[in-house]
């Protein structure tokens, strides 16, 4: 390593830290009221059709790994968490939103991952570090879809 690049290394490191800091802080602010986040994270309603696709995608939404529900391939669904059939009758959009954003706010022992949180996690793999599981837009899409699941 040249002396110039040696001198640059700390500056580069600081820049990288600053960027990831910005990324971490890019989380949209939200307010919890009771057991809900009443307002949309994006300020706009989500798209239920896109939400259905996210829930059905085992690599993106991950939902069906633990939850059953009125989705494709019932035999590939998990049963570790409540069935989502008719969940729109039981929970409001705001309640669904908090359960996705950070379910540990309701039950700290929950196995439900926090889909919109980057802090308080251990040994996160580099490619997922400082990233949320879903984006604010994706969460709103899923909320729109789930809120519409009625018996």
């Amino acid at each position, binding site marked *: 390593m040249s002396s110039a690049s040696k001198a640059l290394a700390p500056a580069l490191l600081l820049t990288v830290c600053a960027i990831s800091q910005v990324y971490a802080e890019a989380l949209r602010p939200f307010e919890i009221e009771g057991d809900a986040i009443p307002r949309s994270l994006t300020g706009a309603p989500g798209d239920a059709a896109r939400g259905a696709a996210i829930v059905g995608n085992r690599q993106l939404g991950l939902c*069906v790994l633990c939850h059953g529900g009125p989705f494709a391939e019932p035999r590939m669904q*998990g049963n570790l968490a409540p069935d989502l059939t008719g969940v729109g009758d039981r929970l409001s959009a705001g309640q669904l939103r908090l359960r996705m954003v950070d379910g540990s706010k309701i039950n*700290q022992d929950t*196995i439900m991952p926090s889909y919109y949180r980057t802090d308080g*996690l*251990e*040994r*996160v793999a580099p490619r997922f570090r400082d990233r949320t599981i879903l984006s604010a837009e994706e969460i709103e899409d899923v909320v729109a879809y789930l809120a519409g699941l009625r018996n």
Partner: protein
Amino acid sequence: MEAAVRPAWIGLALAVLVAAVAVQPSPAQETVRPIAPQDRLSGSAFMSAEARALQADDASNPAMLWVKDGEDIWARKTGVAERSCADCHGEAGASMKGVAARYPAFDPASQKPVTLDQRINICRTINQKAEPFAPESQPALAIASYVGLQSRGMPITPPDDKRLKPFLEAGRSLFGLRQGQLNLSCANCHDALWGGKLGGSPIPQAHPTGYPIYRLEWQGIGSLQRRLRNCMTGVRAEPFAPNSIEFTEIELYLAERAKGMTVETPAIRP
């Protein structure tokens, strides 16, 4: 009289409250109840009848191909010392009986616990003066399968060695540590939710009864550390390095947790 009693009563109540707060587990290290010994089940109990039949028949168990390779390695002279395993240890059927069931064990030279794979490499380096096998390489898995087979049917018997205790406790903590972007511990699934279905597949109890295993998903044989790495990747955590002390500590805790269960090596798993 009543006024004089009240402060003491309040003091006691406060003390009880403080004690209750003090024993609250930290968020990352919650209390998941371990599986009671009589409820323990090997991974084979969660498999299909076809997979169990494959494991039960040595003529059809594909892992036996690695065992055969391991038998050859056992007999082959190697290294600067031009010495085979058999030159020192003789018949593996006698000398290696029950050995795999006792690992990880304490290594006085390094003052640390070592896994069976590491022990084999220590023997290669010191006694055969040969290169250590790379983790997860064909010869490493072959010799481990062959040595492991010599304990088949025997109970897992972790050494009662107090030098292992701090490492065992570290392993117990790691098992309960929530990790990765999905923020799940080993215990979350394998102590609390075994028997449940994750994406359609049953969650086993995570007992190291059959390693190295031939895993149908891998279409090949792999070590316990490879399996642990799969789970860590699954929860989007950064896996520990191969042969790291953390993996050895987890292996120690798993052996303790499975104490008395029967060795099935080389096992089939889905």
